[in-house]
Structures are given as C-alpha cells and as structure tokens.
C-alpha cells in the first residue's frame, strides 16, 4: 500500500524529521488560505500515487496567495497518468542549496534492511543507480541490533556531506529507519533531502510504501489508504480478502495460489487467449469467498468465458464447488464456465458440480484451450 507525499511527510515529522510548513487543500480557496497563513512563496503539489508529477505539470510555484489559488484551481481536477488530482499539498517554497537522497528499503537477498544515501538527490534513484552507481552509498542493518550511529556517519561521510551536518543527518537517518520499522514499511524515502538557505537539512519530498502483511497491526495506517490507488473491482476484492488485478482480456480467471494464477494467465496467452484479470482466492478459501470472486469477475462485461482452475491443498475442492453452485444460483450467468478441480476433496467437488451445466477439464492445457474456444463462441 502506498502513502501520499503529505501523509509520508506528516509521519516523518512525528519522528523528528524536519519538513516544510504547509497543509493539504481540496479547493482553491483552501489553498489560498494556507498560502496566506504561510505568508511567503509556496509550492502547490498534486497528491496522486504516481511518479512524474512535476513533468506532468502537477507541481507549480506561486508567489502570492492569489496566485496560489489560481495555480491550485489549475492543478485540482487535473488528470495525471489516469488519476484525477483531488488534493494538493501547499508547502512553503524550499530554498534549495543542495539535494541529497536518503532511502530505507528491505533487501530481500541479504534479508536485512538497507539504507541508501546519495549526493545526487532530486532525481529518481533508479536513474542514479543506472548512470552513476558509485554515487550511492549503502549500509545494511542487523535486524536484532538496529541502525547504529556509526552507520549513519558512514553514509554521511560517504556522500561527502559537510561535517557540520553529520549530527543532523544522523538524527534524520535514525528517524527514517524508525519510521520504516515501526510502520512495517517496504520503502521509506526522502528525495530530496535538502540543505536549505538557513543551512539546515529538510525533507522536501517523501514516499512510504507499506508491507500489506503488516497492516493488521497498524489500523491507523491502513485507514490512510487512498481508494483511487485501485479500481473499484480491486477494492471490492480486497474487502473479500481476495487478491485481484484488473487486466484487459476476455477470459475471467479464478485460481488458488499466486504462482498458479500467474501460470494460468501465461498458459491462456500461450494458447491465444487473453486474461481479463489476475485472481488468487488464497489458501483455504471457503464457498462465500468463491461466490464473491465470481461476482467480481462477472461484473466485467468484457469477460466472454470464465476459467476456474483449482488445485486443492489447503483449499478444498468441495468448498470451491459449493461457491460455484451458489454463484450460478444467485448471479446472472450468461457466459460459459470451464472448471478444473484437482487435489484435496476433488471427488466431492465433482459430485457437487455434476448437476450444473459446466464445461469440465482434467489438465491445465485442456482447461485453457476449452476456455479460449468458449470465449470465441466455439464449443470445444
């Protein structure tokens, strides 16, 4: 789950990281009021969960409160990469003397949290990594020890930070590490971290990505979710604890397990079809979950056939079969269903489905070929 810039920076501030004074506005009048309160030039920044806001014209300066109102009215409602701007952050304009990058990320290969710093702030770190990798300094944090002060100094001296900023930088790096750990993040990033006109460090822009598995113990963070991050179907799927991603094909897929769901999509493509979605009902799904999943798939009117591929393990085939029967009974089903059930309780599952008018298959290739044919209106 992604947090907006303003949400990320408010969290940074709670951990003692200096951020510019500012606030969020949803109307031009609010933007004007914030600029009046600040009493100095401001920057108006669109709050959407995509990169490249600046290039898209979603970040602009305003010298006066009236100008802030005008700029906000341009930016609010703007479309950036398919997302409508509903909020802007009105921050005091930063007096940037130099820009640094500071990011905390989970390094899965080393199984530790890594902290990266670079003297090349203000540009995407991917670019720095590609062009001048020697400008990135990295330290790894032992999970049972936490970030040590000397590691922060290694970062600061490593990027050539003037020594009068070492103490400040260490405090900010330790704050950012605490943000990462205490919010179960996958990424916490300040870019740029600037040296301002008062010769102080300040976090001008920031980003936090949260580990979805940690949200159960951070209700306050889960509540910050922006519903615009996902499609309505994806939101509904999450409410039913289903993992669903919209695609643009014609074969609705219902599969158990992320790997098998991805492989099923791969095989659909291989046999000339196109998947309408990725849908993993997860381990141990019950009948209600299967019915909910089918209802989401069937609402997409591009779907010409539904492919159900279940390999029972912790998920039992009889539960899935009950869910399918319930979906057929309660939903308006006009497209063909191709069903393949193998594994735990498969016999019970097949018996439950025997009464329903479904296309069945025993192998994955067979099921996919039948679904591709059915979507084209051919009887396989």
């Amino acid at each position: 789950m992604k947090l907006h810039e303003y949400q990320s920076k408010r969290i940074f501030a709670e951990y003692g990281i200096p951020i510019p004074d500012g606030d969020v506005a949803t109307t031009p009048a609010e933007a004007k009021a914030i600029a009046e309160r600040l009493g100095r030039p401001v920057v108006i920044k669109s709050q959407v969960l995509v990169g490249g806001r600046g290039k898209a014209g979603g970040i602009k300066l305003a010298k006066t409160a009236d100008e802030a109102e005008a700029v906000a009215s341009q930016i609010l409602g703007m479309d950036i990469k398919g997302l409508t701007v509903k909020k802007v952050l009105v921050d005091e304009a930063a007096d940037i003397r130099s820009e640094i990058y500071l990011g905390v990320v989970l390094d899965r290969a080393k199984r530790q949290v890594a902290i990266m710093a670079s003297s090349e702030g203000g540009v995407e770190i991917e670019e720095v990594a590609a062009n001048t990798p020697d400008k990135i300094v990295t330290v790894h944090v032992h999970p049972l020890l936490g970030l040590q002060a000397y590691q922060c100094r290694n970062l600061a001296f490593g990027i050539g930070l003037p020594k009068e900023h070492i103490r400040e930088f260490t405090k900010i790096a330790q704050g950012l590490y605490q943000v990462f750990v205490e919010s179960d993040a996958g990424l916490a990033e300040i870019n740029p971290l600037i040296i301002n006109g008062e010769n102080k460090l300040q976090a001008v822009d920031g980003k936090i990505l949260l580990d979805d598995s940690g949200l159960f113990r951070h209700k306050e963070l889960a509540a910050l979710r922006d519903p615009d991050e996902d499609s309505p179907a994806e939101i509904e799927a999450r409410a039913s604890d289903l993992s669903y991603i919209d695609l643009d094909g014609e074969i609705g897929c219902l599969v158990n397990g992320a790997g098998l769901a991805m492989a099923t999509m791969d095989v659909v493509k291989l046999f000339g079809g196109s998947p309408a979605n990725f849908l993993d009902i997860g381990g141990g799904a019950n009948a209600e979950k299967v019915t909910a999943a089918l209802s989401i798939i069937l609402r997409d009117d591009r779907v010409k056939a539904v492919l159900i591929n279940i390999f029972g393990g912790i998920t039992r085939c009889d539960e899935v079969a009950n869910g399918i029967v319930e979906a057929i009974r309660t939903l308006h089903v006009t497209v063909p269903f191709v069903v393949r059930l193998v594994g735990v309780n498969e016999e019970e599952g097949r018996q439950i489905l025997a009464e329903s008018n479904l296309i069945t298959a025993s192998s994955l290739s067979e099921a996919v070929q039948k679904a591709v044919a059915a979507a084209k209106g051919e009887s396989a």
Partner: protein
Amino acid sequence: MSILVGKETRLLVQGITGTQGLFHTEQMIAYGTNVVAGAVPGRGGQWALGNVPVFDTVREGVAATAANASIIFVPAAFAPDAILESADAGVELIICISEGIPALDMAKVRAYLDTTDSMLIGPNCPGLITPGEAKVGIMAGHIHTPGTVGIVSRSGTLTYEVVYALTARGIGQSSAVGIGGDPIKGLNFLEILAMFEADSGTEQVVLIGEIGGTDEQNAAEFIKHEMKKPVTAFIAGQTAPPGKRMGHAGAIISGGEGTAEEKIDALRSAGVKVARHPEEIAELVAQNL
C-alpha cells in the same frame, strides 16, 4: 532416498486443534506421516484425533515424544513466535505454513535462526513431501508417486500442477519441497538444490520460480558451477503486469527487476531447460530419463 523428511520424521504440529491444523493433521496421518505430538498453549493433556497427545509447549512435546520436525498452522500474527518456540526447543526442521507474516518479523526470526541448528521451510508455503514415506504439509498426497525427480518451488499450487503432470506420465518424485513465496524465508533454492545434488535417490531436479527478486538468478549461478544433475525449470508470471507490488528501490538493491525474462535467460545460460507451460515440464523431464 530423499531429502529432509521420510520414515524417520517424527512430527509435532503447532496449532493442531485449529480448523486447518486438525484437517491437515488427519490428512498427514492418513498418508503415513508419523505425527507424534501437537502443541497448543492451554490444551496440554488433551488428545487430538484420538491418539495424538497435545502439549502446552513445544519444549514439553519434544521432551516427551522426541519430535524432530514441527509444522506450524497458526495465524500470521502468532507464527514468528511459533517458529522461535520450535527453534528454542531444538527442533531440527521447522515448516511454517502460515501466510501473511510481516517481512520485518521474518528478518528478525531468520537472523535468530542463523545462530541455531534449526532449518526453516517457509513461511507461506505448502510444506514438503517424500512420496510413499512422509507428507509434512498441505499438498494432496495422492497426486505424488515415489521416484527420482526432486522438486523445489516458490509456489504452492503450481507445484501440485507439475507433480500431477509428472505422475500422469508415470514419473515419480524423490522429494518435493515448497520453499514459499515470501521475500524473507528459511531454506532457499540454493540449499535445496545442494541437497538434491548430494542425494543418491535424486537423478534430476525441477525448479519452479516466479517473478520478483533474484533467487532464480542465484540458483542459475549455483546450477552452472555446482550441479551435475540435469535441471528443468518453469517461471510463472511471464505475462504479469509489472509494478503492481514492489517499488523500484527494492529491485535496485538486489541488482535486477526480477522479470520472468531475466530469470529465464539466466537459467538457460546455466544449461537449464525452461518449459513454456507447467505441463511441458513433464515432457522435458521425460527426455532426461
């Protein structure tokens, strides 16, 4: 022969009285697995399924039954504690089925486990099976058949798919290990590949990977330099839309984006045959017989 589990496995089930724990314990016993104990705090002195003694703590269970492996069926919020409890009781092999453990918890658990002799499989995995001897997991036992193909996989249900296709062709398996799909886990491809390479009962190996991370690329390096047995692979997610789950900074630090293409190229250049779809694995494996 086989790896990690077999007739000598004496299994303790953590969370044996829960719905999933009870159901799969019954299935494991029906398969022939030697389930010697269960552990559930506050349920000590009870019996599960009539004849499996339940203990309050793993330590007591191990002391009373000489369990040498444990399998964990507890909710994600309690699973790190359950893994540590098993490790602290000296259990040699810990299998964690639980899904949804926060990555930072696993980073701590793994750092501690590295100081002990316990090995962890998972979390978020189906477990492992040595066909005809012991099933320590949630896979359907009947699709497996004893043989000489070792399987290691990041995916649960996709592994069943491959096993099913192998068995349908009469090709048996020495052991099938689901290492799980989480970013931070216990044993990885490398350790399992090394065990299969050393196992006299395994003649060839199937590796099933997924997009994300660099584990498959590391496996390719290992196969190239350390393995003589033939390896066949499949990578799921060749058509998956990019960028839905992980930010780019994570990819940078591990030196790669973790695309299917990258992984397939690395495996091919290590001499691994890569299947286009899961059932084709069985055809490629048959060519090596």
